């Protein structure tokens, strides 16, 4: 396997956009290509992420149109990936392995989504299509509902009073909103308090509105290439150290929802491939679609023992002054969650952190970063470990 690196990254501001999926993707893609010191004609393949284009804009089969927007050559296959919220992370993993295998030297990976454009009711319905359509979604299951059931199980299993768990969950939202306030591309750039969370409307007991990430519009993209090529193009190549991906079936088959087994499988592979462990990770962008989700993730990574990670944000261990900075971008919670674009936006943040370009939200001296994206009701997990040298 050849060494693989990221040459350039790009993303739109996340939030509510008047632009179409393709227009947003063109902005992110051109930013990534330009930052890589290459031309669109140099791109040999497009790995394109989008989940719900047919419902958002009546647009399916978006990948070839995206290639055309960017002026990629006809010889560059443009292929759409869909893995619910993990879409563009999964696209990235496949792209990186094909570059590593020597099939391509230089490719573009990214995603785009107009989730906010659908409105809450249709967005909730179409997101729920990521659950099993015969045995889960007819019960009226929603994604907040999935993580709400995990939160209840967590409180019961570890005998933590629900009020205490909810305060600790609220601290995750407070931290990530603070981080988002430092990120000009975040959907929400405003600080909140624990009371903001605990006084917000209930969405799925025990999750309140501010425990949940927003529906966002946005796009992101990265240029992935063979490492020697990247060293000739840019001053700070960021290297792909290790990757993992794992799959699981319907939520009810997973039984103990406090343990996301697909994540445990995925991260084990990524750690092994990178030759690192939890202690080596300096900065992490993880899938905080809901506050409880961040707690489950930091335990899966081995940053905390199971049942012990719930108060990490409360005691400041995952903030900028803590021992392990989690979601410096603001995470899905504040940066926003345009599902097909989320993964490569997480990668964008880690690349910029490892290059030391993040200004006020820079994690000092970060050398190894972890990306974590979860798709569906714990059905797809994908992890990417990046390093600066």
């Amino acid at each position, binding site marked *: 396997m050849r060494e693989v690196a990221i040459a350039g990254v790009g993303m739109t501001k996340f939030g509510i956009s008047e632009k179409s999926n393709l227009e947003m993707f063109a902005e992110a893609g051109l930013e990534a290509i330009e930052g890589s010191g290459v031309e669109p004609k140099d791109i040999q393949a497009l790995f394109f992420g989008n989940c719900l284009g047919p419902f958002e804009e009546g647009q399916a089969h978006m990948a070839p149109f995206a290639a055309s927007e960017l002026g990629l050559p006809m010889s560059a296959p443009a292929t759409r990936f869909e893995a619910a919220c993990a879409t563009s992370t999964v696209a990235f993993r496949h792209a990186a392995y094909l570059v590593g295998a020597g099939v391509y030297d230089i490719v573009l990976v990214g995603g785009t989504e107009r989730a906010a454009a659908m409105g*809450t*009711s*249709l967005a*909730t*319905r179409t997101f*729920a*299509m990521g659950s099993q*359509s*015969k*045995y*889960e*979604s*007819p*019960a*009226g*299951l*929603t994604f*907040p*509902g999935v993580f*709400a*059931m*995990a939160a*209840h*199980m967590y*409180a*019961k299993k570890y005998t933590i009073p*629900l009020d205490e768990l909810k305060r600790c969950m609220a601290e995750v939202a407070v931290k990530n909103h603070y981080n988002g306030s430092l990120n000009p591309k975040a959907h929400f750039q405003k600080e909140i308090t624990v009371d903001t969370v605990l006084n917000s*409307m*209930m*969405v*799925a*007991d*025990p*999750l309140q509105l501010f425990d949940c990430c927003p529906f966002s519009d946005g796009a992101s993209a990265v240029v992935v290439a063979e490492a020697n090529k990247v060293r000739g193009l840019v001053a700070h190549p960021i290297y792909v150290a290790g990757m993992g991906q794992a799959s699981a*079936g*319907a*939520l*009810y*088959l997973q*039984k103990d*929802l406090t343990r996301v087994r697909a994540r445990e499988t995925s991260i084990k592979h990524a750690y092994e491939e990178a030759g690192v462990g939890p202690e080596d990770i300096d900065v992490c962008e993880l899938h905080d679609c809901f506050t409880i989700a961040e707690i489950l993730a930091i335990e899966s990574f081995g940053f905390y023992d199971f049942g012990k990670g719930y108060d990490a944000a409360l005691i400041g261990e995952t903030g900028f002054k803590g021992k392990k900075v989690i979601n410096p971008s603001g995470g899905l919670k504040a940066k926003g969650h345009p599902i097909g674009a989320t993964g490569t936006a997480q990668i964008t943040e880690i690349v910029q952190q490892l290059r030391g370009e993040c200004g006020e939200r820079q994690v000092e001296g970060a050398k190894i970063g972890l990306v974590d994206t979860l798709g569906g009701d714990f059905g797809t997990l994908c992890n990417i470990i990046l390093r600066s040298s």
Partner: protein
Amino acid sequence: MSYTLTFSQYHEGLKKGKFLGLKCDDCGAYTFPPLGVCSNCGSSSMQVTEIEGRGTIRTFTVIRVAPEGMTPPYAIVIVELEQGPWVMGNIVGLNPDQLSLDLIGRKVIMGSQPVKGDMFTREDIRILTFHVA
């Protein structure tokens, strides 16, 4: 190889008050609702069998922001059946506004109820329900 127990056959069972599942010839585990292979050992050698409807609630939530076409609030539970499988459905017979963590661990009895299809699912289908034993 033909699918041992289809959704359509499972669903016909629900309409008649029967819970059709699969019993593995190799390990004896029950798979319910059906899958292509045994959920325990992966064997494709399974017999259709009737599942008993008793179990214990393992977690729940109350949905207050619902997908298009659903009317909140309503409660969703995950239940561990006495015969092994874990299943998802709606709790019935309890006020969704009066549920607490004490619900976890309660014994329940399984039923089913019809859910109106929408433009995406195209058909009305039955979903599992649970009431406290």
